């Protein structure tokens, strides 16, 4: 993180009337990375993207690109292009003319334009469609053209506003892979906005989780998943079990006992707890050790329970295990024949050391 950032957002504020859409938002985006803005609808991610692009002005705050203050620079002069959610292809122009538009605005010669359009179309595998009109293309094809159009002028930054939202599942997965490859090949920095966490997690180098106009956490996918900084982030990404625990501090260690189920845990991040005696321990569904009742020799650490619900997902199975009072535990494992409803089981955390979050925080 010592290299100078490509894009720097500092304390951006934006409100529509009395509604605060973005609050004190600061972000740093590095050269060549695939960065995602992830959050539920209405969290302000699209607005942030529009402010970066220049379609809206922030009420307060500044933006720097490669050191230059671009807060007031008009849209057309920013070295970035956008792929719109509904593609926004020019309906009266052919695919070729669409892609050529940005180059024409850069006053390139006809020959240059021809070459670069061909190169861009080739990158998105739409070379055969150069003479078609947008109305004659399918959704996925339109999307590729929109992409080619944004890439052709070789911007330093590419902004993508939920570009895969209108595609069906299979196409979406394919495009995700293609986008990632494209980004690596071109070396352009991507800022990708989406509400689909799987998408964000699988494609990004780093991502920011947003909610209600604020950034909750920024980091690489692994960081966010394994070390969420708050309950909101933890429950937004992946599934989670939150165990209420009582904490006892011994020197540098923090020992926790699960109030509902009695598991004994050692906490990995005592420094975050600030000597609180109550906290919430995070245990991911795949972090359980689940056995059949009669299967275990040494029952130390295990608690007994019953399978209350199960959802078969092909390569994994989601189980809800009831241990008594309180909420059932979410467990994700590779499916095994004995996993049936009402099956008596033994369960304990696979790892002794787990991360804790402040309760309510």
């Amino acid at each position, binding site marked *: 993180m010592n290299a100078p950032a490509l894009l720097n957002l500092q304390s951006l504020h934006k409100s529509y009337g009395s509604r605060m859409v973005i609050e004190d938002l600061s972000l740093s985006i590095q050269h060549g990375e695939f960065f995602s803005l992830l959050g539920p609808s209405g969290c302000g991610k699209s607005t942030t993207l529009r402010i970066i*692009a220049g379609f809206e002005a922030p009420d307060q705050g500044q933006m720097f690109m490669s050191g230059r203050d671009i807060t007031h620079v008009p849209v*057309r002069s920013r070295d970035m292009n956008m792929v719109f959610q509904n593609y*926004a*292809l020019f*309906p009266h122009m052919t695919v070729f003319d669409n892609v050529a538009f940005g180059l024409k605005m850069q006053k390139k010669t006809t020959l240059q334009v021809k070459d670069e359009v061909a190169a861009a179309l080739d990158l998105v595998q739409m070379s055969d469609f150069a003479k078609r009109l947008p109305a004659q293309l399918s959704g996925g094809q339109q999307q590729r053209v929109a992409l080619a*159009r944004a890439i052709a002028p070789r911007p330093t930054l590419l902004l993508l506003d939920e570009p895969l939202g209108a595609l069906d599942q299979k196409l979406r997965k394919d495009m995700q892979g293609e986008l990632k490859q494209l980004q690596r090949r071109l070396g352009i920095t991507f800022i990708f906005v989406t509400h689909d966490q799987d998408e964000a997690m699988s494609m990004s180098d780093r991502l920011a989780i947003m909610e209600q106009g604020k950034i909750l956490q920024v980091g690489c996918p692994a960081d966010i998943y394994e070390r969420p900084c708050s309950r909101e982030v933890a429950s937004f990404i992946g599934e989670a079990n939150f165990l209420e625990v009582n904490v006892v501090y011994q020197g540098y260690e923090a020992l926790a006992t699960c109030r509902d189920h009695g598991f004994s845990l050692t906490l990995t991040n005592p420094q975050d707890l600030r000597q609180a005696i109550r906290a919430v321990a995070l245990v991911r569904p795949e972090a359980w050790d689940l056995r059949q009742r009669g299967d275990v020799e040494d029952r130390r650490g295990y608690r007994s329970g019953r399978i209350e619900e199960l959802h078969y997902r092909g390569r994994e199975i989601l189980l809800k295990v009831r241990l008594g009072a309180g909420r059932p535990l979410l467990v994700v494992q590779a499916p095994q024949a004995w996993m049936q409803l009402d099956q008596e089981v033994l369960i304990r955390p696979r790892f002794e050391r787990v991360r804790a979050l402040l309760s309510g925080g």
Partner: protein
Amino acid sequence: MKQAWSRLFGPRPGLFGRPMLRFSLWLHMGLVLATHYVPLLILLIYSFNASQLALTWGGFSLVWYEKALSKPEVGRAIANSLAIAISTGLVAAVLGTSLALAIERGSERIKRSGRLLALLPIFVPELIMGVGLLIFMTRVLQPWLQPLGWGLDSFMTVVLGHVTFAVSYVMVTVRARLQHYDRQTELAAMDLGARPWPLLWYIILPQLTPAIFAGALMAISLSLDDFYISYFLTVGGSGFKTVPLYIWNLQGRTALTPEINVISTLMLTASMSCMVIAYLIRPPSRGRSH
């Protein structure tokens, strides 16, 4: 058979169930349609009447067409009307479109005054417009026009008058489309580096073509139809005529020939064909390739 009868004429479910009600409504519709079409049909039919008298049918003939069309004034009037209409269409299209763009993409204040502007021509009687333009042309413009060799009731002044009230109609038409088409294409163009002029020329105008075309057509038909403005501008009595003026002048004649019928029928045919042609060559609203 009885079923069909009762379904058509018997009581039905629904608000208009009572047959008497339905019957009277249909009767009313029939009468109104008759009053619409019968006079026009009579006009049409009698234009082919060989006899001069309006009442007797002398047999089918085109003699009145010959007579009417051979008159030079007729040809001149038609040419005048067409020339004025097309010029009006062009000028009004340009002005109306630029006004619509100014209102829709300009600031908020202009938007509000623009709405008001759109309604003004509808509520100002054409009579007043005609009178006002007469005064304007004679007293204000004439001293300027004289050296240029343009007379008062010439082509130019009539076009000036027509354009003035046609602009609003074009503006409303274009503005409606401007409000409802995909604005994101404009944002995309700006994002790709377009300055205002290229944005307008390459992106906005091509998408507005159907509306501009429709607006121009409206301006053209308003101009062809116009009576008041041309009338007042020619009150000075030069021979300049448009077709409506020519028709108007025929009423004064004591010997009424079916010439009136002929001119009317021709105008009828012209208007209908205009509409049909406009409908057929209407550009697809989806836009076209370059």
